[in-house]
């Protein structure tokens, strides 16, 4: 029966795979299993078989696809530039329709609707803040419990950035819009605040448009394509007036930069979107921000997949960390996924935990007492698998702390 939705994978994209196998060793699920059906090439072969109407969208197909982390580590080594991430998102949209289940329906409600609703996010945020204060997070078991306990302490009252603006310190050079995100804006406000501090020092006025919503990445990855389109369209309007948008979560940034696949006007928003580490590195290069003196020791660098593989951003976080007085330490030459991968841990807790343990071991082996990660999902996963004593911070936070030290000195 092949495909049934308007979001079906495009045939040209599928045909671009020449089955060379050069992507295999970069794929975490292939690394764990040695199984072609858990590899990018194998998954593409399965998708092509369905596209040709030679295999049905059955349980086995669903399983092969769902086991994929959507980390996009298979994209950079691909000589043929197969847009794997895009193909897999479209397959998920087909699965949502062709393989309906209660779990899929509930996930769609949360990812496609819940995350787009500020009220729901606020309610959830307050719920977590209260649970943290009452010690209730200890009562939740499994991977959900581990993630909950790994959350930063949520401030009460909440301090969302949406709808706020900040004036520059010193001579104004321009305006930049902050992409606030969904959970980021409730649970990771300290990272937003750090970024705002840094940009103000560089002379930027920072605005966080009130009408922006969740980027829709989690919805898109889970096949809630209509919801993803709606959110994308919403954000295209919300950011229409500005010409620079900064994002401090790698997952959101990667998705925003793919908006061209999703809505009209998406490519324009994508073109003016920049990751926080890239913007700060640029400001450092231009001399708009200072290289800070001091020896703050070593920091392990964890590359979020959606920074390194999806956006090919590798050097900039290191650049920012060096400017903050740290010595970046490499932990993994392949940049294998930490297993967080959005909500992957809910579907494949064992695989997610195994990858988390491996990543934590790499961090521990580096000997550094701080690890820098530029994505909220990875941060939770790292903190969940690391022992106390190793701090997990966003690179921009580390730079901001060093900057404030210098400014107050």
């Amino acid at each position, binding site marked *: 029966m092949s495909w049934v939705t308007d979001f079906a994978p495009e045939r040209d994209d599928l045909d*671009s795979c020449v089955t060379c196998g050069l992507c295999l060793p970069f794929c975490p699920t292939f690394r764990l299993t040695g199984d072609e059906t858990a590899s990018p090439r194998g998954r593409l072969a399965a998708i092509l*078989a369905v596209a040709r109407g030679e295999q049905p969208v059955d349980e086995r197909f669903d399983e092969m696809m769902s086991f994929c982390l959507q980390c996009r580590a298979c994209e950079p080594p691909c000589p043929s530039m197969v847009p794997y991430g895009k193909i897999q998102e479209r397959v998920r949209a087909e699965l949502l329709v062709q393989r309906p289940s209660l779990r899929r329906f509930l996930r769609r409600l949360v990812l496609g609707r819940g995350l787009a609703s500020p009220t729901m996010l606020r309610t959830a945020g307050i719920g977590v803040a209260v649970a943290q204060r009452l010690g209730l997070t200890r009562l939740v078991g499994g991977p959900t419990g581990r993630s909950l306990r790994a959350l930063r302490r949520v401030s009460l009252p909440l301090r969302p950035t949406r709808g706020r603006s900040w004036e520059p310190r010193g001579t104004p050079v321009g305006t930049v819009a902050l992409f606030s995100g969904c959970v980021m804006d409730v649970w990771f406000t300290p990272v937003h605040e750090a970024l705002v501090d840094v940009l103000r020092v560089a002379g930027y006025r920072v605005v966080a448009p009130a009408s922006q919503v969740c980027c829709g990445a989690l919805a898109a990855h889970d096949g809630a394509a209509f919801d993803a389109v709606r959110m994308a369209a919403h954000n295209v309007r919300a950011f229409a007036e500005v010409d620079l948008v900064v994002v401090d979560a790698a997952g959101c940034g990667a998705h925003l930069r793919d908006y061209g696949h999703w809505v009209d006007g998406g490519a324009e928003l994508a073109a003016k979107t920049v990751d926080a580490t890239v913007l700060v590195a640029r400001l450092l290069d231009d001399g708009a921000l200072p290289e800070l003196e001091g020896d703050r020791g070593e920091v392990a660098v964890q590359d979020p997949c959606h920074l390194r593989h999806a956006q090919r951003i590798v050097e900039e976080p290191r650049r920012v960390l060096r400017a903050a007085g740290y010595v970046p330490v490499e932990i993994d030459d392949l940049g294998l996924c930490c297993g967080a991968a959005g909500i992957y841990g809910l579907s494949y807790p064992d695989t997610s935990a195994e990858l988390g343990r491996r990543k934590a071991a790499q961090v521990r082996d580096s000997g550094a007492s701080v690890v820098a990660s530029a994505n909220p999902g990875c941060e939770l996963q790292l903190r969940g698998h690391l022992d106390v004593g190793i701090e997990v911070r966003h690179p921009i936070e580390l730079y901001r702390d060093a900057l404030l030290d210098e400014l107050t000195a």
Partner: protein
Amino acid sequence: MDLVAELESVLGSERVRAHPLDRRVFAKDAGVKTGPVAAIVFPETAEETASCVRIAAEAGIPVVPRGAGTGLAGGAVPVEPALLVVMTRMNRIFEVDEQGRTAWVGPGVINLELSKQLASTGLHFAPDPSSQQSCTIGGNVGTNAGGPHCLAEGTTVAHILAVELVTVDGEIVVVGAEYPDPIGLDLRAVIVGSEGTLGIVTRVLVKLTENPPAVGTLLLGFPTVDAAAATVSEIIASGLVPAALEMMDRPMVRAVENFVHAGYPTDAAAVLLAEVAGHPEGVRAEAEMIERIARSHGATSVRTAADDAERALLWKGRKSAFGAIAQSAPDYYLHDTVVPRTRLVEVLDAIYEIAARHGISLLNVFHAGDGNLHPLVSFDASRPGELDRVLAAADEMVRVSVEAGGTLSGEHGIGLEKRDLMGLVFSADDLDAQARLREAFDPTGRMNPGKVLPEGSRCFDRAAVSGGTGR
């Protein structure tokens, strides 16, 4: 009990697959052909492998070993419904003898991974096929893989001391030994390159090579293919043995440059990538000598890698060649023939002519040092008749190589693809002798049948013999 149940009783259900979609996904390697798969197994030990082979024997189906499936000749693609034995999970490095420079490794160990794991010892595994990031040691043994650095170091066969093998009747034997010259017949060279037709390799004793203290890498641009070829001939004639000597023609250089942006000269008609290795003094002298020879043949550009990063970039260009052309068309066909170096230019001209006549686009990349040509054809198999034209041209290209005194395959193996061309280089007697050797290992003909040797290689019909003697 049926085949799957039987296999599951040994391996458990997770390591046995027979769903149509799994069989479909495993039906192909990196080449162009697909074949029928009955079931797939992932053994983790030699004993498990042996059990799988015995179960397949009882079920009366053939066995096909598979590594990473990067083979280009269809070696891991069955010709009749077979049990596919996937070796990727046997990926342990068992023991490394740094003094003796050897290591026992599982066949599923990835080629590049082995050298990476050995980094701290200052040793590496020398054969470096362009697919080294993905292909397995078992697959390298199967195809006797080569690579740019095999010019000085020799192909896989020169780096294998012993193999542990599961034979067609499920016996586990060790061929070869830790010392270079075992007593009795040396069967290692028979196993290496046998493409899984003699048995399944379950452990390999590899020879390790010391990392050279210094390396020099040069990228040379030439105004004509002839000038580049003449440079190659003179370098070899001068007695120099470069660590690697690779050539690419203009279409290839452009495709690669578009992909990796390594700064290759896109205006040159041909580019040579030369590498010398050894002691710093020698490296400097040899690099200068190569530069001098190149300039005397009119080299238009000479670039020397300043550091490891630049060297890696230059090599990335070369090693991405196969994939880089994928940008222009969805399929590619990669040839692998060998011609005497002295007749390089002439054969190249003939190959360009064949491509033009069949109306197909051709790019050239090759191990110039040993005359191993890799003409690459990019095409679109979904267009009717296109694959046939490509295969017809392929046939002709192999023929001109052989007529010029060359051979069928430099390193990718014969497999399914070139099987029927074996008659071009071997007489009926030669083929019969090879078929007999194979029969000595596999009298039932169930170990990766239909590969390497064309049908009818044995001078009298095998079916009659196996049926008649009850074996």
